[in-house]
């Protein structure tokens, strides 16, 4: 069975890592020029569970955007599933994002005029999730983040943590192979945060590759691999 995630992604080599960054630099032309990432090398294998920590403004979100094909490295190579991403067309990139990658944005990015359910359904719109399954899967995802009593609420009427959980439900609804989460527990209390992490880890157990940016030490320590970014430079913690 081919998951929707197959679109545009193929691994030429069985052992190819999901993500391979080679000397990736992302600089924003100034003035003053900002080097948000400097010569980053990173390999993430399928099924890895990685947390990224680092001070504010160190380049974590930039890293996530590059990984998610939302941004392009200024210098360096990014191989995704063994494929050099700079060779992908704009449409291919969109298809990979939609089909294989799930995002939890730091700023959530929920549509204010759409219900919670619609916001989650939005993630099934462009990536070929079978129409008949969409609503069921969206409801199930919301159920798993404990929001099945808020299906028809507008995001504006939700608490910060609830919004965050909608964003999490949206990220997992299309069963991505790579989940990129930018502070997915930033607004959550310890219990809810733990529940969201449990959800992620269940999915991880099923083969999901997980990258989580966090300030929360407890969250970071649950990951198998931990990397630290400081001033755009990446170092792997033991």
């Amino acid at each position, binding site marked *: *069975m*081919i*998951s*929707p*995630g*197959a*679109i*545009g*992604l*193929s*691994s030429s080599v*069985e052992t*190819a890592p999901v993500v391979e960054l080679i000397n990736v630099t992302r600089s924003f032309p100034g003035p003053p020029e900002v080097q948000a990432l400097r010569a980053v090398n990173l390999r993430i*294998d*399928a*099924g890895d*569970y990685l947390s990224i920590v680092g001070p504010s403004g160190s380049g974590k979100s930039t890293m996530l*955007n590059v990984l*998610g094909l*939302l*941004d392009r490295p200024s210098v360096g190579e990014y191989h995704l*599933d063994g494929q050099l991403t700079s060779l992908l067309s*704009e*449409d291919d990139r*969109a*298809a990979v*994002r*939609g089909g294989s990658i799930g995002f939890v*944005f730091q*700023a*959530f*990015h929920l*549509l204010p*005029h*759409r219900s919670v359910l619609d916001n989650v359904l*939005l993630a099934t*719109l*462009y*990536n*070929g*999730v*079978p*129409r008949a399954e969409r609503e069921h*899967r969206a409801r*199930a995802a919301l*159920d*798993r*983040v*404990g929001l099945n009593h808020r299906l028809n609420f507008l995001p504006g009427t939700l608490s910060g943590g609830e919004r965050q959980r909608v964003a999490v439900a949206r990220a997992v609804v299309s*069963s991505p*192979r790579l989940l990129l989460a930018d502070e997915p527990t930033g607004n959550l209390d310890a219990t809810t945060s733990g529940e*969201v*992490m*449990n959800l992620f*880890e*269940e*999915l991880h*157990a*099923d*083969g999901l590759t997980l990258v989580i940016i966090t300030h929360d030490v407890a969250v970071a320590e649950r990951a198998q691999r931990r990397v630290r970014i400081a001033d755009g430079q990446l170092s792997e913690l033991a």
Partner: protein
Amino acid sequence: MKLQRWLAHLPTRLRFARAPGKAAEATPKAALENVAVAPAVKHSDRFLVQDLIIEASFGIGARPSRLIMTTLGTVLGIASLVVTIGFAQTTAGQIASQFDAVAATQVVIEPGSSRDARGKSQSTARLPWDSGERVERLAGVERAGLIAAVPLGDVAITAVPVNDPSAAETLSPPLLATSASLLEAVRGRVVTGRYFDSGHDTRGDRVVVLGANAAEKIGINRVDSQPSIFIGDRSYTVIGIITGVERRSDLLDSVILPLGTARADFGLPSPDELQIQIQTGAGDLVARQAPIALDPNAPENFTVQAPATKSELQESVQADINIVFLILGAIALLAGGLGIANVTLLSVMERVGEIGLRRALGATKRNIASQFIVESVVIGLLGGLIGSALGVFAVVIVSLTQGWSPVLDIWVALGAALLGAVVGLVAGAYPANRASNIEPITALRGGT
């Protein structure tokens, strides 16, 4: 498989994670599965027009008050176009119906007259007895018939032969003689019985037809019993009663007999006038050719009353009004289009976050562009529909108060509504293009 497993988890609420040991085994398999390159997405599961329309309608519906302001320009533009065309068509219909009715399709030819030395009017020409046949050969002539007043002198027309000199003098109806084809030439209708034919005419049969008013006055309303009337002491059989003569309503008050009979019995010297029914617009042509057909040697001796072809002045005035309104409509439409473009652009700017999100969720540039295009097309179409409806309404209301019959091509109304959609399409093109070219990362940073 992965999906099914994922689904298997779904009913359970958040619970403690299992040991993530299975991941290692699951992965190579998942990787293998994904070797397949071809997107195995069924067409029905792609992003389709129906999705597009739903997404666009949410975009439009999000700000109803703005929607009203946005459509206003288009509404006005389309409405003024519809009103302009509607009034042009209504007036044209009005003129055409008057034009059609009587005057425009009737030509009357009389022999010219001149005054002699003693100031007495004298005919300078005579209409030939076969004028009708001669003229009917001309292009544009539908029917032609001769008519002449028959001087009665002191002869009375009565229903019974009266020889009683003491009886009060009743006023006789006028006596007219016509050719058989005259009834049609002046658009009369037979109420009962029949009009005489050319046979009666050539034989000089003693038959008459009564105008409806004359028949009433004389007291005859049926002809199946072959009633007779007396002109002087000669008896004539009444074979029909006519009505509806628009052109020569004096026929209704008259007793009418065939020209041949009038010549034989009353010594009628010549016909008085030739009534010609023509096709619309043939007035000039017939007016030029008919006198020649009547007398090739001296066509100038006939006086011709032909309808003026539609007043040129009137036409040009109307054309001016149309142009002014059309230009106003076009300007309003242009403003409407700019309004839509402006608001769509504004909405693109406001919704960069949404654009970025959709791009992150797999929307292609095309998906984004078409969403904004559809939004502006729908706005334009909405404006077009409302404007068209308002325009039709205005035309109908004004026509009714003026007593005109409103004329408006249904295609004008529908076309105008569609024109609104086209305006939306054109207006949306630039903002949609802008929207689709925003880099996902810029879009995501731009909005919340």
